[in-house]
């Protein structure tokens, strides 16, 4: 079967600045695909190329078999796009925004209500409120409704959860899962590593290049280096002390623990002894399961 999104050696520069270079990706129909990377990694540029808004300098891409440059008119009929910046009419009410976007896609809210029902029900109490007066989470739900109302085959969501509270973020991902069950291909970008595990497959992107593409578990499993979670009474001194050692390859803060990657596998007692010698107390040390963030930092370091 043909992939829903196919990207072949896409590159884009703005003047002298390289935004994307040699991007190759395939996203299957009905897949929930995550683009994970920090701000400025090139996620938005890739979205704008795939939604046919931006011409790439190199390479080609197809969405549902349609060429993003040659068939841009056809692409615009079958995709839904939610830009990173809130881009609805702030001075129009919730209902007016949704009606407008339904109409320009030649449909009505009633016709496709089943698609947005679950999301829209939460918005319904505020349907006469101006979009600009909604909370961050509500804005994102409305934007998703507007992107969905014409039943797109492929949905592009650029950082839909940025600036949204933790509860709304969780809800948002629940919605995406249900949409995927309807067979809609979803490409979503996020700077939050913890959201990566909610996707079926992810691409780690940094500096305009893709570092790795795989299922989230496969990516974390690929991390073969010894990893420990450490904490002591003095968190900050611990960070500095570990970074000074020869055996530590990388020390990164991770919640209340530090993630310590050592160059070679070594007995836990050896590390504990070192910490005791440095005068640390309340030492807790255990092997840690690698996360996407560990992989990301590792890939960034090696490339």
């Amino acid at each position, binding site marked *: 079967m043909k992939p829903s999104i196919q990207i072949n050696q896409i590159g884009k520069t703005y003047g002298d600045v390289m935004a994307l270079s040699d991007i190759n990706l395939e996203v299957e129909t009905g897949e929930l695909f995550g683009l994970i990377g920090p701000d400025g990694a090139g996620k938005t540029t890739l979205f704008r190329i795939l939604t046919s*808004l*931006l011409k790439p300098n190199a390479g080609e891409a197809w969405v549902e078999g349609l060429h993003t440059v040659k068939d841009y008119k056809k692409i615009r009929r079958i*995709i839904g*796009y939610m830009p990173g*910046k809130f881009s609805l009419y702030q001075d129009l009410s919730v209902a*007016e925004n949704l009606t*407008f976007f339904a109409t320009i896609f030649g449909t009505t809210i009633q016709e496709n209500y089943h698609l947005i029902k679950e999301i829209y029900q939460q918005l319904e109490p505020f349907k006469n409120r101006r979009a600009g007066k909604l909370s961050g989470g509500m804005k994102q739900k409305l934007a998703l409704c507007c992107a969905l109302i014409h039943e797109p085959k492929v949905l592009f969501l650029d950082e839909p959860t940025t600036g949204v509270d933790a509860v709304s973020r969780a809800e948002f991902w629940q919605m995406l899962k249900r949409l995927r069950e309807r067979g809609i291909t979803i490409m979503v970008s996020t700077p939050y590593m913890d959201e990566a595990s909610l996707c079926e497959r992810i691409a780690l992107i940094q500096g305009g290049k893709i570092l790795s593409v795989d299922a989230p578990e496969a990516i974390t499993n690929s991390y073969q280096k010894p990893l420990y979670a450490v904490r002591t009474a003095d968190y900050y001194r611990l960070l500095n002390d570990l970074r000074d050692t020869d055996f530590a390859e990388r020390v990164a803060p991770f919640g209340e623990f530090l993630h310590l990657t050592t160059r070679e596998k070594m007995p836990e007692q050896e590390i504990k002894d070192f910490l005791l010698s440095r005068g640390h107390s309340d030492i807790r040390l255990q092997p840690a399961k690698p996360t996407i963030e560990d992989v990301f930092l590792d890939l960034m370091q090696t490339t």
Partner: protein
Amino acid sequence: MLKTFIAFVKKEMYHILRDVRTLLILFGMPIALVLIFGYTVTNEFKGASVGIVDQAQDDLSRQLITKLTASGHFELVRKPHNIEALEADFRAGDVKLGIIIPPDFEKYFLGGEGSTIQLISDATEPNYAVTLTNYASQMIRDFQQEQFPTEQMPYAVAIENRMFYNPELVGAYNFIPGVVALILMLISAMMTSLTIAREKESGTMDLLLVSPLNPVLIILGKVTPYVVLSFINALVVFAMGWLIFDVPVRGSLALLLALCLLYLMVALALGILISTRSDSQQTAMMMSMFVLLMPTMLLSGFIFPIASMPAILQFISKIIPAKYFILIEKAIMLKGAGWEAIAIPAGVLLLMMFVLLAAARKNFKVVYD
């Protein structure tokens, strides 16, 4: 297609009606402009301060003074005894026009030898000074005629002036056409460029582009409300001109309104073109000011006559749409001219519209580089 268009127009109307600033510009500005121009930019004057040095103090000089002040145009505020005192009054700004009647005015004047009256004006305001001296000269000539009604002066060339179309030189006859041209240009072009730039700024333009909408429909949907509103504005200004300032429409009103619509299209096309070249409302605003407001005010012949401009500015004035529209307006409103008389300026506007629309279409980006 039609449904989409209506939805678009409706959305645009919401934007306009919900933004106090837009509403103020749309409806407050035209009325303010008409009133401001109507009562300030005018060559008519009443009660100008005059100082008269009457060195003759005879019957005839008193008759002359009575005639000058009786008209209501001049108000005698000072009667200095000599020229030095008059100069002091000028410096103090108390008088704008000085009239010096020489000694033995009656004796020489009636004796057939002739006499000289001196007019002095404060030319720090050149236009006002010229108007005052012209008016005073005319009144003095009239006075002379009245004194010798039958007698023909030897060797004198009699000049008879007739001011066609506007015999009383009413200022409103000039400024109402000018204000209509200015308002239509500003509102249609500036508001259009702003409204499109706003969609770009807020990112909604991207959403519109990533939809099956034809770009022509996007533009059409956005400008249609402004066409209607600008047209209403033109009607309001014409009505105000007629009701408040007695500016007539001597020719065909239908023809005038039809050409109004044509001029509107030119302005809109210009607005769209500006918006394709600006990514933010601020740039659009600056460009509108630079490209529209100043040239329309200064180079259209609205305030300063084109004939007295340097050659280079005269040349530039040829590409100012307002220039042609003002010509058309004056021809229809004041001269009562018909279709044939305005065919050429109308043709130029039509050509401008097509060129600008083509340029706007070409510059409107549906895919970014």
